[in-house]
């Protein structure tokens, strides 16, 4: 078993994880031995993990066949195609002001009929429909319990995917929306850069504590808690800037973040029960709480690897997702996306948590691939509190809302 555990947080062994590789391996082994000796108040062992990587799960084929019309058109392309050639020549100094320049980015985003910023007034223009995923395969989980396209009791009709292994009923409308947008695909700027920033700044890190573990291969009931790592604790790295395992992190005491749920371990994979939770998130210079409903996680906790990858799936709150897109406005060119296209698509494709009054769904099924390292967690006096929707200023999403 690779996961480190501890009864008494902050041991010298965990602090030594910043030592060179050889020493780290010794410490790693010692920590593994310690694991067998420790236990929680409920009995059984406690496992700790730090989530050091977080990617939107995007299933790609070698020739991009999931996007049969090609990748989504970016904001600059849509602006450029809408301006007459004579005017374009003046605005871009005969094409010498390229898309990535600050001047052109500003021109292209203020393309509303009255110069509105189309990320803050996405209905001020009518763009061509967003190119969305048409492939039938996706990473993710069956969140609504339904394998047909009509959805379950708490979802709206939508087209299901199959998993790469053939499992039916996979719900992942976030992938359907973002999967054909360059910035979220492999080598795209948005996910690669966000992961690099999290590694380099140690911001926005989720901590996972699994307690009451009697057997890391099969256990009918364990308790799983999610915390936000305290901002003051940095992620120790080796000479390759890879994050070292078995460091000790303090849990942040902000009540907004985290939550507790139950889980079980089946064939070495931890499966959690659905949890409404707000998690910390940082990337691309943006701090943004991630609001998830019915979130669940699958994590192979019996692996002896330094990095353990798992899946987090659930429904992302629609307002929260739109807030995320708007905050990335400055990445319109490098991410090659367009706010109005995403706005319209997310309204059409939202598939979870129908509003009881309108029937319109208020959340998007989603899946994320996480990368974890074993860690020790100090949380004396800090208990995860569950879902608290962050007090984000309500964003005007239409020109009429702005007028009001």
């Amino acid at each position, binding site marked *: 078993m690779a996961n480190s555990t501890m009864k008494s947080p902050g041991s010298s062994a965990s602090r030594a994880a910043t030592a060179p590789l050889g020493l780290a391996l010794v410490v790693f082994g010692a920590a593994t031995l310690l694991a067998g000796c420790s236990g929680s108040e409920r009995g059984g062992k406690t496992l700790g993990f730090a989530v050091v990587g977080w990617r939107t799960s995007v299933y790609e084929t070698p020739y991009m066949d999931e996007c049969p019309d090609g990748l989504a058109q970016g904001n600059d392309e849509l602006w450029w195609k809408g301006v007459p*050639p004579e005017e374009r020549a003046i605005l871009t100094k005969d094409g010498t002001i390229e898309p990535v320049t600050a001047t052109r980015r500003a021109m292209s985003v203020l393309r509303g009929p009255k110069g509105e910023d189309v990320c803050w007034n996405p209905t001020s223009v009518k763009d061509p429909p967003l190119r969305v995923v048409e492939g039938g395969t996706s990473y993710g989980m069956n969140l609504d319990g339904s394998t047909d396209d009509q959805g379950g009791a708490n979802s709206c009709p939508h087209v299901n995917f199959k998993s790469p292994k053939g499992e039916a009923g996979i719900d992942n409308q976030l992938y359907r929306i973002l999967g054909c947008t360059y910035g979220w695909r492999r080598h795209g700027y948005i996910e690669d850069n966000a992961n690099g920033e999290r590694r380099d700044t140690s911001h926005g890190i989720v901590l996972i504590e699994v307690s009451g573990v009697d057997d890391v291969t099969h256990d009918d009931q364990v308790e799983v808690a999610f915390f936000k790592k305290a901002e003051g604790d940095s992620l120790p790295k080796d000479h390759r800037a890879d994050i070292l395992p078995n460091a000790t992190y303090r849990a942040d005491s902000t009540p907004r973040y985290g939550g507790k749920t139950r889980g079980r371990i089946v064939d070495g994979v931890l499966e959690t029960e659905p949890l409404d939770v707000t998690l910390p998130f940082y990337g691309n210079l943006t701090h943004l709480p991630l609001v998830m409903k019915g979130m669940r996680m699958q994590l192979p906790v019996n692996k002896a690897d330094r*990095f353990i990858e798992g899946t987090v799936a659930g429904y992302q709150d629609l307002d929260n997702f739109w807030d995320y897109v708007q905050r990335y406005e400055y990445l319109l060119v490098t991410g090659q996306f367009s706010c109005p296209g995403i706005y319209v698509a997310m309204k059409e494709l939202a598939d979870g948590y129908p509003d009881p009054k309108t029937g319109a769904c208020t959340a998007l099924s989603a899946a994320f691939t996480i990368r974890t390292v074993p860690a020790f967690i100090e949380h004396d006096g800090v208990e995860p509190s569950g879902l608290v929707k962050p007090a984000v200023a309500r964003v005007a999403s239409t020109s009429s809302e702005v007028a009001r």
Partner: protein
Amino acid sequence: MPRPESVIVLNVHRRTLVAALALAAVATPLLASAQAAPPLPPKPVGAKRYFHAEISWANNTYYTPSKATGSADFMLDLDTLTLHWVLSYEDLSSPPTAITLHAPAQPGATGAAIVNLAVPGLASPTKGSAKLTDAQAEYLLTGWSYALVTTRKYSKGEARGQLDRLRKAPAAFQ
């Protein structure tokens, strides 16, 4: 007989090397770079993908008051990375001097010439084929390539067409 010093040094170095390799063998699975995207599924065999470009003076990044238009169809054989094309143009302001494929560039941006599309000559229509690199093929799939007809009057290009992906083979390749 005492061993020469160089042999001893070599043996010490060999032991160090063996130890280092052993450590590397243990450590390698534990080390990994930053989280990467999941691996791609296997490439399908016999795959061909198709593209179309509507060529016009109005697609240039600079102003070229002209009447030039045209169109082009492309087939990319992904087994051999061979690109086949049929391109035609009309109403150029002056004789053509080059017909080229450029990348990487979105519409409204400028890329470098990567393929000479006038292999058999500059007359319209022109047909041909050329082998691409993996990166060049990816530019096509990503939508970051364009055909450009350059003329004596417009040395930076008179008419341009971005390659858009097609769902089916165009008539030229059926």
